[in-house]
């Protein structure tokens, strides 16, 4: 996932924003099914690896698309690649 923002945003803030977006769109029950986790965040490249349950990728995509701000900073998050393993994700996108 890539972050577009003119401000500095940390990994924990991104994860909290994604949780909030999931909760807003799908409720606590829906969000709990996502099994969301932040595996890595590269502040320099502004790329992150998020973990999500296999069947809930579309739910996460929608939640990421619905995030417009983190704190006061306008942001946009876009999915670069989806993969079953971190190894193949790295091979595909050189994150």
């Amino acid at each position, binding site marked *: 996932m890539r972050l*577009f923002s003119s401000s500095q945003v940390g990994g924990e803030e991104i994860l909290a924003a994604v949780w909030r977006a999931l909760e807003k769109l799908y409720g606590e029950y829906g969000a709990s099914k996502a099994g969301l986790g932040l595996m890595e965040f590269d502040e320099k490249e502004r790329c992150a690896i998020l973990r999500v349950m296999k069947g809930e990728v*579309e739910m996460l995509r*929608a939640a990421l698309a619905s995030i417009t701000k983190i704190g006061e900073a306008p942001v946009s998050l876009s999915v670069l690649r989806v993969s079953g393993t971190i190894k193949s994700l790295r091979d595909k996108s050189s994150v």
Partner: protein
Amino acid sequence: MRRRFADLHLRFNPRDETQAAQMFERASDFGYRMIGVTTDNANHLGDSDRLRRLGKDFGLDVVTRLDLRAKSGGDLVRSLRRVRRRFELIAVVCDSKPVARQAAKDRRVDLLNFCGCSYRQRFFDLSEAGLASKGLSALEVDIRPLLVMEGPGRAGLLMSLRREVAIARSMDVPVVLSSGVSEVALMRGPDALVALSSLFDLNHSSALSCVSDVPFCMVKRNRGKLSSKFVAPGIRIIREGKGC
């Protein structure tokens, strides 16, 4: 063949080259191949050739689009007569029922846009879909309100969109997914539009065609009509001169 994507509803001042370049760059990053540059005023598009050249630098095909607002059905017909051949796409902002009905049955209208968020301001019902299915217009769903609204307002809008998309699909009215944004920060890629459309129960393969095949077909049809070789639907000039 790799799928091509289009966002037919980007709103910015077409005369502002810096903003245009920023939006084109982001659209190109997101993987769009075609974008619609929108204006509300037929005289405000500026130099569309300059925009096309700028778009080409980013690998984008720029389409000129007018968002038409009318006070009545008659007013809409008069406006369409005046502007139809000047723009590649005409969308009608349906803020009243008579305008929505006229727009749906007029074959010069490409897109029906319902900007209101309250269900009272949205007129895409079975009758509207029936008229649109006999014409050439498609239902346009802008994603922007879903990004800027939250809580009960967004839930109400999702309810309306779910109903409208189901009606459109049952009546074979094409649906186009667009962003409808005016800021770079709110721009979203085609995969994000497809994912957000799952919130109003549009299935994945249909949603993909709403951001690729449907808009591309619409623009191709209109460009054919605006070409000097077009005579009538199904008739166009192949060759001219003595040898014919």
